[in-house]
């Protein structure tokens, strides 16, 4: 019984320690982020590996999610004779929820895991330690540009996901199922509010980019510097990112659309 309590206590202490380290790490990263703006070359290179290389999966997934919603939505709406609201359905669900959330999940799987693995390996091969000995701050040189790139890419990726998804819904709804072209767009424009829907979706994706970037960086930086440690850290990045994104999505949705 006491052993059990001890285990619980140890786990809790470990968790708090990690949280503390994570927060300190975030502060350190944020403190060195302004300095990195003086060297845009570093950020651009990371935007390539974080943003551009994630683009393919985002575009393809967005297209299919939009097409599926077009099909499903049409089948449901047509029973009520409201198939002209298909545009509204597709656009609202993409812009408010699916765009930011699914893009963030894909982002965590594609870019987040890669970032963790990269930083974990740099740690395991003493590259970070080596930089420190060369009087180069690894947080500034390695972490900050990647974090900034993740933070900047996420809203753009989510917007692309939503836009492509709406186009996918349009293809299926208007092109395949014969919903009226004009009604599709005009109803959408009528019901989707720039401030309430689009901006809130963008805010969501910014928050998700921040969180996924943070988790990926921290897991890599805090990884046990062995092959096993890095692989565990990579898994944790994806799992934690997914959980945090979904949890935060609920909180943000309640705050934004709750009333």
């Amino acid at each position: 019984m006491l052993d059990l309590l001890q285990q619980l206590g140890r786990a809790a202490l470990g968790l708090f320690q990690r949280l503390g380290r994570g927060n300190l790490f975030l502060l350190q990263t944020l403190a060195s982020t302004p300095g990195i703006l003086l060297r845009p070359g570093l950020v651009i290179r990371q935007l390539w590996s974080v943003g551009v290389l994630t683009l393919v999966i985002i575009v393809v997934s967005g297209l299919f999610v939009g097409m599926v919603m077009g099909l499903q939505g049409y089948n449901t709406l047509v029973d009520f004779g409201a198939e002209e609201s298909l545009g509204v359905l597709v656009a609202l669900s993409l812009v408010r929820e699916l765009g930011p959330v699914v893009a963030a999940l894909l982002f965590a799987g594609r870019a987040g895991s890669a970032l963790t693995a990269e930083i974990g390996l740099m740690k395991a091969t003493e590259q970070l330690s080596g930089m420190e000995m060369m009087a180069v701050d690894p947080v500034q040189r390695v972490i900050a540009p990647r974090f900034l790139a993740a933070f900047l890419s996420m809203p753009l990726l989510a917007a692309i996901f939503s836009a492509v998804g709406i186009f996918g819904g349009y293809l299926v709804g208007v092109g395949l199922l014969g919903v009226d072209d004009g009604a599709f767009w005009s109803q959408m424009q009528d019901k989707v509010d720039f401030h309430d829907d689009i901006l809130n979706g963008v805010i969501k994706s910014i928050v998700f980019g921040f969180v996924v970037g943070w988790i990926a960086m921290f897991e890599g930086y805090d990884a046990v510097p062995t092959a096993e440690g890095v692989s565990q850290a990579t898994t944790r990045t994806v799992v934690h990112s997914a959980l945090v994104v979904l949890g935060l999505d609920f909180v943000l949705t309640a705050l934004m659309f709750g009333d």
Partner: protein
Amino acid sequence: MNTRTVEIGVGLFVAVGIAALFMLAMQVSNLSTIGSSGGYRITATFENIGGLKVRSPVTVSGVRVGRVDVIDYDLHTFQAVVTMKIEDQYKGFPEDTSASIFTAGLLGEQYVALEPGGSMTSIEDGGRLQLTQSALVMEQIIGQFLYSMAADKKTDQPPDQKTEQQPDQQPGG
């Protein structure tokens, strides 16, 4: 990876991302139709606004001219006060314009329909519409319908009570 390729790729990525945001703003949302902050406000009081909501459309002859901006409740008159924002290009409705709350389709959303009157003076910014017609509430209509059915049946037996049914013929008001 060549620096030039990287930079071009990132440039494309950022351009496409911003284009997507722009497309969402202009093509998908109402940003293009609202016209930032323009427009003028008029208010109207209703006995019952039914399911009317903020941002519900305001139409004239079926053309959308604005949106419901604020819904409030007046504690002195015990009536709902609806403030509507009308776009600037639709300025100059007559003073005696009337406002009604209708439902689009059987299950659709509710909207305010304006019907211009014949007065020569136009309504000002912040002006109040005097003639209004409240929303139809389904339960009331069904209730009145059932009541009048029952009343109809009764009248069949004692034929001298005919005068009582008269006020119930027209629902709403």
